[in-house]
Structure formats: C-alpha cells, structure tokens
C-alpha cells in the first residue's frame, strides 16, 4: 500500500466547496442510495482528505469515487463553482493506477482507443449477432439488460454508407462538419441518416471527416488519459479549420467532451490548447442547431398529423452543457408532444454505469419508464445513445415504448 503522505501527487484542488449540500439535491445516485457517501459533496471531501494524506488509496475509495454517472449535474448546480467533473476524472485516473479496472472495462478501453480495432470488433460482433441462438441472447445480460434487448449493430459502419461530403438539397446556406460518434457509426445509423437529412434540408453542405476517432470520454472516465490524448489530437486535426460554420454532434456526451474536455486534457499534458478552444466554440448539438434555424424546416402538415404522439427524455449532458430538445418539440406546433413529469431527470445510463452498478441504474430507469408510460405518448425521444439503450433495455415485458433520437422523428415530418 502507498504511504498516505504521498497522496499529494493527486494535487486536486477541492477547496472552494463550502459543503452547502446543494449538489445532493441534484445527484441521481444520491437520490437512490440516500447515503452521504454516494453524494457529490462526499466525493469532493474524499478527494480532499486523500490529497491531504488522511486516507490512502483503496478499492473502496475507488468504488466511492466511481459510483457516479459523470452526469455533470453537481457541477452545473454548484454555486461555488466546484469543478467536480475534472476532479472526479483526475481522481479516477489516480485510483486506477493502484486498482485496475475490471477486465471488460479494460477491453472496452482497448477497443475505443483505436478506430481500427473498434471497427474490427464491431464486424466480428455483427457476425456473432447473426449466429447467436436466441435462447443464449435472452439469458445473458449486460447489467440489467438482456442481450436480446440490445440494439443490432449497423450492417456496415454509418460513415462507410455515406459520402464524405453531401451537398444541400435546396439553396446553399453554409457548410458544417459532422462528428458522428461511435454510437451512430456502429449502432444507430438511423440517427446519422436523419441528421444528414435535416442538415441538407436546411441548406447545409455536410462534411464528415474520415479520420475522426472516438471522442475519448470513456477513456477519460476510466483513467486512460494517454490513449485519450491520441484520439483528441486526431480529432483536432480533422475538425480544426476555417470554413465550417459549426461542428455538429448528434450525441450530447460526445458534444460535451469536444466542447469542455479537450482543452483541459491538453493543458494537463503541457500542450497548447488554442486549437481545442477554437473547436469548442463551434460545437453544437444537432437539435440546438435546428432550433436556431426553425424557419428553415418545412414540416409536412399531413405527415405531422399522421405522426404518433411523443414524449421526451433530456440526457444529462444535453441539459447540463447544451439545452434539452424539448423546446423544439414544443415550438413545432404540429407535433403532439406529451411531456413526462420527470423528463429532466437522469435515467441512470451514464456511459458504463448501467453495467457497473445495475441496482442503482434499475431504480433510476424504472422511475423514468413509469412516468414516460404515464404520459400516454406512443414514442419516446432522446438524444443520447446510452440513454436510448438503457431506457429501451430496462423496460420489462408488456407495454414497450419505442425510442429514437428527436432528429429521426423530425426528419420523418419533412416535406
């Protein structure tokens, strides 16, 4: 075991926390476990006493720090501007040095660190999915989610299905770059096609840089900062440039990472971050981009009248870093939008959280599912692929609400 007095290397500043407790009120994990040790305030305190050498690194300390969705709600609501997010990230790296991640998580990091590996794994899995007996898929679970409820992978990667550059359908208004993210590329190609359709419909030329890599957030959460840096540099190389009006993301978590995490990671490594800051200013989620240009959308009245009613789940990274898409659903009057009373609450997906802490995730998802079903809507919209997998997968048999990205729904209403 490490000598506690050496912990100062963690050097994580925690001293602006006045312990007011505001963050407890917004922490989804605390709302389920109701134990101070599962609160953001406690995590900040633990990092502090660890830095002061009063406690040493231990598997329990690692668990207390990591039993967190990294949803950012504590940071967004902390009046004293405590940066939980960065402190947690650093502390996670520190803990992983001493206590390795479980093998499945390490495998995931290995895959996400290289686009090539990910592609290969996905195509292998695709073959696997084809030959897996149904009984096997029913029996085996990822967290609480039966394999049979996981979405199928794209038959080919989304990026290989579309051109590197797509021209607008009507009058040209500008050019945007599109960061497709791992989920759209490998799992939800529908989201990618819908995003392209919306953008070209509104008059934008869409460029999808070929060399883009995983945004890196899973790597950062699991302490693989060095691998993350390589991806970040690759992404900066393909997205930093003149000409494009915006960099579009369809996944809020990729978006918040590109927007907020690239500069600090580079700075921590002693590198210049001006390119990361330029990118940060251009990042926008597809639904906010649409919201700011609603007049460019031509909604087909007949299609809208025939469409199903929808409800909405606001992903944490969208609500804490951007703005939830409910405003678009509200403003397009033709849409029959039935809000759920807790549409802003967290679903417990949290990257790999639903897999690592299924008992907490099940409670959070259960509340959401209950309220979404109560809304009476026929379709459930959410922008984040992990929320989507989590909320679809955690629904027990019986009434099942389908889920999709708001872009997919709105794309079906266009003239």
């Amino acid at each position, binding site marked *: 075991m490490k000598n506690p007095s050496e912990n100062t290397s963690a050097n994580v500043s925690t001293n602006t926390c*006045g312990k*007011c407790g505001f963050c407890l009120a917004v922490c989804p994990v605390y709302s389920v476990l*109701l134990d101070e040790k599962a609160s953001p305030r406690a995590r900040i305190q633990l990092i502090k006493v660890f830095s002061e050498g009063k406690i040493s690194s231990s598997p*329990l300390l690692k668990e*207390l720090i990591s039993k967190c969705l990294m949803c950012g709600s504590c940071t967004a609501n902390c*009046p004293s501007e405590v940066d939980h997010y960065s402190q947690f990230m650093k502390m996670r790296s520190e803990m992983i040095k001493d206590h390795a991640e479980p093998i499945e998580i390490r495998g995931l990091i290995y895959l996400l660190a290289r686009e090539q590996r990910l592609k290969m794994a996905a195509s292998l899995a695709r073959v696997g999915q084809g030959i897996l007996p149904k009984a096997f898929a029913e029996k085996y679970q990822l967290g609480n989610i039966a394999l049979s409820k996981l979405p199928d992978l794209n038959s080919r990667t989304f990026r290989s299905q579309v051109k590197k550059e797509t021209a607008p359908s009507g009058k040209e208004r500008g050019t945007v770059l599109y960061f497709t993210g791992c989920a759209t590329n490998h799992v939800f190609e529908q989201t990618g096609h819908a995003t392209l359709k919306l953008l070209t419909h509104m008059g934008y030329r869409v460029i999808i840089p070929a060399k883009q890599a995983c945004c890196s957030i899973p790597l950062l959460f699991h302490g693989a900062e060095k691998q993350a840096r390589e991806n970040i540099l690759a992404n900066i190389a393909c997205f930093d440039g003149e000409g494009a009006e915006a960099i579009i993301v369809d996944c809020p978590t990729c978006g918040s990472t590109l927007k907020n995490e690239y500069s600090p990671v580079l700075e921590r490594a002693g590198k210049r971050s001006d390119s990361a800051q330029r990118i940060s200013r251009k990042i926008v989620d597809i639904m906010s981009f649409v919201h700011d240009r609603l007049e460019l959308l031509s909604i087909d009245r007949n299609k809208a009248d025939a469409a199903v009613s929808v409800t909405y789940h606001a992903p944490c990274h969208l609500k804490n870093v951007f703005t939830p898409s409910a405003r678009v659903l509200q403003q397009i009057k033709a849409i029959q939008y039935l809000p759920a009373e807790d549409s802003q609450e967290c679903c417990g997906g949290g990257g790999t959280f639903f897999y690592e802490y299924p008992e907490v995730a099940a409670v959070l998802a259960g509340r959401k599912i209950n309220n979404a079903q109560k809304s009476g809507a026929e379709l459930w919209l959410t922008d984040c692929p992990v929320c989507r997998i989590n909320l679809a997968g955690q629904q027990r048999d019986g009434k099942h609400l389908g889920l999709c990205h708001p872009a997919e729904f709105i794309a079906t209403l266009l003239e």
Partner: protein
Amino acid sequence: MFNNSLKDRLITLLGRENVLDSIEELSCYAYDSFLEESLPEIVVLPKSTTEVAAVVEIAATNKIALTARGAGTSVCGAPIPVKRGIVLCFSKMNKVLEINTRDRYAVVEPGVINGDLQKKLAPLGFFYPPDPGSIMISTIGGNVALNAGGPRCLKYGVTMDYVLGMEVVLPSGKIINLGSKNIKDVTGYKLSALFCGSEGTLGLITKIILRITPQPETARTVLVTFADLDNTAKAVSEIIGSGILPVAMELMDSITIREIENTLNLGLDTEAAGTLLIEVDGTAETCRREMGRIVEKVNDYGALSLQEAATSAEREELWKARRFAYPVFAKIGPDIITEDVTVPISKVPAMIAKIREILNAHDIRAGILAHAGDGNMHPLIPVDKSDTEQMKRVNQAIEEIFAAAVPFEGTLSGEHGIGLAKAEFLPLVLDDNTREFMSVIKKAVDPDNLFNPGKFV
C-alpha cells in the same frame, strides 16, 4: 470503546449496507455545512422506529455517544459527532406517511426532504410554510431539531409553529408520542415544542405530524434599492410598524449585492447601498393594496429604484440573488461562517450599523444579509479556516457582534441554532438559573449524556 461484537449486532439488526465503519465511509459523515469536522466511529442508517430504538438500546447499554443526522446542512456544527461514537443518519427514513388536506396535516418520517414534501403538497393546493434556504435538501427531522426558519417565516412563523406532534425515541430506548393531529391540543405539557430546537440532545424524532396550509391565491414581489443602508433598514421597521405583514423582507447590503452580481450577472444595481426584496401574498386584491402601501413607504425613505415581478418566472428571477447569497460567499471563503444574531425589528437599523462597524474595525470583508422583517441578521463571513490569524480576527468580531446584540435585547441565534458555533456564548443571553433548568431537563432525560454530547447542554 467500539468492539466488533457490537458492530456485528448492528449489522444483524440493520443489514450490512446500513452500517458503515471504514475510514473512507466515516470521512463522509464527519462534517456539516459548518467548519469543524470529527470522525464518528460508526454510522448507521436505520429504516424504521423499531430499528432506531434497537440502536439506541445498544448505545445506552454500552454508554456510547450517539449523534443524529439529517442531511448535514446545519451551519452551526450541530450534527458533528465531537465525542465520536455512533452517527445515526435518518436519510433512509424518508416516507411521507399521510397527507390529509381536510384535517390539514401531514405525517412524515424525519428523513423526508422539505422540498419533496412541498412537491407532494403543491398539486393539492397546499404548502408547508417553513422554507429554509436549504429547502431542497434539508430534512424535516433536521428542520424540527433546529427549529428552522426561512424568508417567509416573517408572516407564517417557524418550524415549531407547524409541529402538531411527534414520535420520539428517548435515550432510554423508550418510544413516546407527543401532541396529536389536532390543531388545538392542551393535553399536558406542550412537549413537542421542547424537542423543536433541541438539536438531537434529548431524543430522536422518528415521526412528525405537521400542520399544512392552503396556498395563497397569488403573490407579488418587489426589489427596491436605496442610496443609504440606514434608510433601507428604517423602511423595514416602518412597514412592519404600519401594520402590513409581508411574507418576506430580505435585506442585502452593497457588498452582498456586488459579490452576487459578480458571480451571477443578474443585472443588479451594484451602486445601491441597500437592497430590499419584499413579497406579499393573499388574494389579488390584498396584494395590490398592500404593495401599494409598501411602495409609498419605500419612496418615503428615498427608494432609488423599484422592480416588480409580474409572473412567477419573474418572481423567481428576483429571488435568485437572495437564494444564492450564501453559496456565493462560501466560494470566496473557501469556508464560510453565517452569523445569525437577531434583534427586535425596531433595532434592526442600529444593529446593522453596529455589525458593519465591528467588521470594519477588524478588517473583515463580509456581506450583511438579513431576514430584516423579523430582525434576523445574517452577516456572511467568508473565511479560510486554515488561516489562524484571520480566524482569530473573525472570532473576535463575532464575539463583539453577540455582545452588541445584548443591549438591544437581542438573541444569539434566530434560526441556525447553537451547535458548536455558539455554545460558549450562551451565558450572554441565558442567565445561570435558566441554563441550570435546561441541564436539569437534559440530566433527567439523558443521565449519561449520550445524545449529541459536547454541544450546548
């Protein structure tokens, strides 16, 4: 003191996940929103009165100190286990057991968060008036044990005014029931009042019957600025003196406003020497009439600007500055002391002047905030508790502020309680006989001094 067999008994009683004893876990129960810290030896999270009573019995038999905890938002160190032992946290006893709008009461477990109760009452057209700034996280048990107040207590009264009855586990392990569901009840001593503000030193409150009230038809809010702080305070006592009873009258001095504006950019007037946030509620007609009279009064005292909120969203905006005052100062800190001296309303102008004078004399940069309508001062003093020289100055100033309240017939704490912060100053406002009477009660109920030892009795 704490051996493994006791721990095993607690685990058998409560389940493994409800008994915490590793240094990592204990570190999470060593603090509240005040400055001090002290590690407990064990933390338990019971789920029922039976479990609470069983834990108390173990503590009593083995003479182990036991400190109750709600959400740990006390700003006076009340739930800090200075004598170590057991921390018993009520966060998992969080069920609203009954809401009865016909008979106007609610029965709750102590771990229910105040704001969660409000969310359940609102759709029924009711509310529970006590609204501490920590409303979204502090527990009803903690509110009762500290007799919490809040901005709207000016009109509606404090926690104690809403406690009809309660179930309590005594240090002996016996369970008693005080009060009833009746609005009027003079059957014997009003013992539930004794437990309001008892800070966990007499018993553990395991169930509470609260009075609830229908929501007023509407409310009106105004933010007024003044060029002169003395006039700001005088306007407050003039309005109260003229017979109007607003829901809230919150006063902020220029330092407070400047710091809030720096952080939140709300467009506040940072030049004003004093700012008042005034709210009235009732029927639309009463609100209009009362607001009219208030506007007249503040103009008499030289109001510079008046900003009235028409919608509830606008009201929220006006309240935002006030709500964020505490955390904004906490950030400057890094730590913060919120003082809480209280004086009769007519003494508010003089007391504010006195506080400012004392702070200046000790070269302390602090904001002055007050629930001015009920005389409750909240100087917000950012400190760095590791800076011993600064802490010495601050402690000296606080002592002088307490002393200054005495000739005004004021008191040490309006709502935050005594805890660790003010225990040594009790003799300033409570004479020997009175303190002895409190000790007699404490000794009779808790002869071994097991419940929250090291505090004010």
